């Protein structure tokens, strides 16, 4: 196995890692602020994929407009979910949120089946991203390169938003002490709503990004949420950097697993998760309470 091929496989793992990162980012942010462990987060990815498909593949909107619209729509859906269903849960035990979002995941799965049917869907690759370029002596698709760039850009955007804006400071303040931030005049309710809308929008973006490459099916949300949970366990729940690191680890482990350990490839990420739980149960970048 040449070094070029090893590095190339890393690029493939990085691409997958970007989808996972976008989903895990929202999951970790929503938990960090709302204390909601959102089972239905994968469903938001799935709804983003279906909306993206309809807008781009059926209604003929451009790919870029479809990406933006699907992201905004699911962001709004997140806002509505937070204001109506999650709001009463904040004073209750975390398990209530688990049960609610678990139910939501099942409802979303059946809803898309009713609205879009059970058969998988896939639109054409957007014309601007058809084809490949040479890297490390092999062809790498423009689309994958675009996904990597999009993932990194969203990551930079999230860090900027949370670290360098007034909104980000109020989010962090609210996350660490809701009552105190209320005393300081912060409207925690709307902070919560905006955080969840953002988390939903980012998951939806990942879903919409995936449509020209992966098929859209009703079970989509469940598959991705499992990986997102693994990522947050590995990286540390509530840690955005942890989610990024975890997504890279899982993405790369998948890719190198297929290449180097084809017989234990599935076990690999579970093995890594188990190891992290044994050695650092709060996650690689999580902090002990």
């Amino acid at each position, binding site marked *: 196995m040449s070094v070029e091929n090893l590095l190339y496989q890393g690029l493939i793992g990085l691409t997958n890692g970007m989808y996972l990162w976008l989903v895990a980012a929202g999951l970790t942010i929503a938990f960090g602020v709302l204390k909601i462990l959102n089972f239905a987060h994968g469903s938001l990815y799935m709804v983003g994929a279906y909306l993206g498909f309809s807008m781009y593949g059926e209604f003929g909107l451009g790919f870029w407009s479809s990406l933006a619209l699907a992201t905004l729509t699911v962001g709004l859906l997140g806002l509505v979910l937070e204001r109506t269903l999650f709001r009463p849960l904040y004073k209750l035990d975390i398990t209530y949120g688990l049960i609610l979002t678990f139910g939501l995941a099942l409802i979303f799965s059946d809803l898309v089946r009713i609205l879009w049917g059970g058969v998988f869907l896939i639109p054409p690759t957007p014309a601007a991203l058809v084809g490949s370029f040479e890297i490390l002596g092999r062809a790498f698709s423009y689309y994958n390169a675009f996904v990597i760039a999009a993932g990194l850009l969203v990551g930079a955007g999230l860090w900027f938003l949370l670290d360098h804006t007034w909104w980000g400071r109020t989010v962090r303040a609210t996350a660490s002490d809701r009552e105190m931030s209320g005393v300081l005049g912060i409207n925690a309710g709307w902070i919560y709503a905006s955080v969840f809308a953002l988390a939903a929008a980012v998951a939806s973006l990942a879903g919409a990004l995936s449509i020209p*490459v992966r098929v859209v099916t009703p079970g989509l949300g469940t598959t991705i949420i499992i990986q997102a949970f693994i990522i947050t366990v590995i990286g540390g729940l509530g840690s955005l950097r942890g989610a990024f690191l975890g997504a890279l680890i899982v993405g790369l482990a998948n890719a190198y697993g297929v290449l180097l350990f084809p017989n234990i490839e599935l076990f690999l990420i579970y093995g890594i998760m188990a190891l992290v739980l044994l050695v650092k149960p709060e*996650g690689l970048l999580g902090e002990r309470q």
Partner: protein
Amino acid sequence: MNVFPRAGRATVLAIAAAFFLVTAACQPPEGSDVPEDVAEGEDGTADEGSGDGACEIAGIDSIQIGGLGALSGAHADYGAQMEMGAEMAADEINEQGGMLGCEVEIRFMDSELDPEVAIGNARNLVGEWGAEFLVGVDSSGVALALAPVMDELDRVLVVTHAATEKLNEEEIYANDHRNVFRMSVPVYQDAVVAALIVAEMPEITRIANIGADYEYGRTAWAMFQETLSQYRDDVEFVAEAWAPFLTSDFSPHVSSVMAEEPDMVFSTPWAGEAVALIRQAQQSGAFQELEMWWQAMGASVDVLEAVTPDVQADAFEGKLWATGRYIFNWPETDTNREWVEAFQERYDRLPNYSAQTTYTAVNALHDAVEAAGSVDPADVGAELEGMIIDAPAGEFTLRAEDHQAVYPVPAGRVVYDDDWGIACVCADLQVFDTEEYYRDPPFEE
């Protein structure tokens, strides 16, 4: 930066619990997700036919046929097409007076490609609903698990898709689970036909596998290698990558086998997974480097519908080869043409092979029940053994020894066809005699 409050041990435990719940959600409990009962569907099946008390079998009003198909996820169209084929056959039978005067009812349940779920559903369909016969089954693993269960349930099962040769060679022939029949071509089609074609393509010497990581994919790759090695000693099997059910990202698989610079990829993921796989392979430039991509079940209609725009744009450079367990454009007989037209008229889609095989299975059950004069599994089974069947796929025998339908299906290149208005296996069609590629009882090396 750790923007948010830290996760403690309790949270980690909560995540672990959440994780297991989500995993469990992947496999809903037995008997869940029962699709609409076709007999009560809007086509009014239950009201048609001979449901007027003329049923000649004492103690029942109708003959129920239970179906087990993949009705969810990327493989869902297979189950849907099975249901369409079964529904069409049942309506035709009912219009002709039913089976022994009894109305035929169909009910499908989602096997979820999981042996435990499928066995639960089989028990449910027989025990709760009162199914006299079962048809369907997509997954090889499910078919193997069901074979002994059919003895216990004492019902005939006609498999209409699952392909492992272990079903007819071992479970039916060697282990004597005589209640099981198969109306669809086994993995001989996927593997031996591929080997016979590649045997005549000297430009192909390096072959890689992207396999479905379960019984079907494993047995297909093994049989392909074994067969091709009998014809060629200059081929090398250079790489393997395995993808389990529910894989959505195949790019690591494509990348890892393409690193070995193969001339051909032998590929067995199917349905939506096949579409994602070849789209990802195409995007990464694999078709420019290969001579041939063999997508074993690429001739299924769901796959052909999905790849049509890419085929029209020549994205696969004419190198995509496929076969199926029946293709709608072959054989060119009146029976087939008329059936395809009737199917299109009814459903506004072309029939997939799972529709054809299930349609044929329900009709064969009708003929066997009429000939036996009963629904007793032993009597009906005896009629099915060695039955000559005239189906859209051609006229063939349901081989008595291993209960296997023996009929050929072509393989060829996937091209766009103006007349059909869809990508199809319509170029370089190669049809082999069944003697050339079916293994025969007693299945000794």
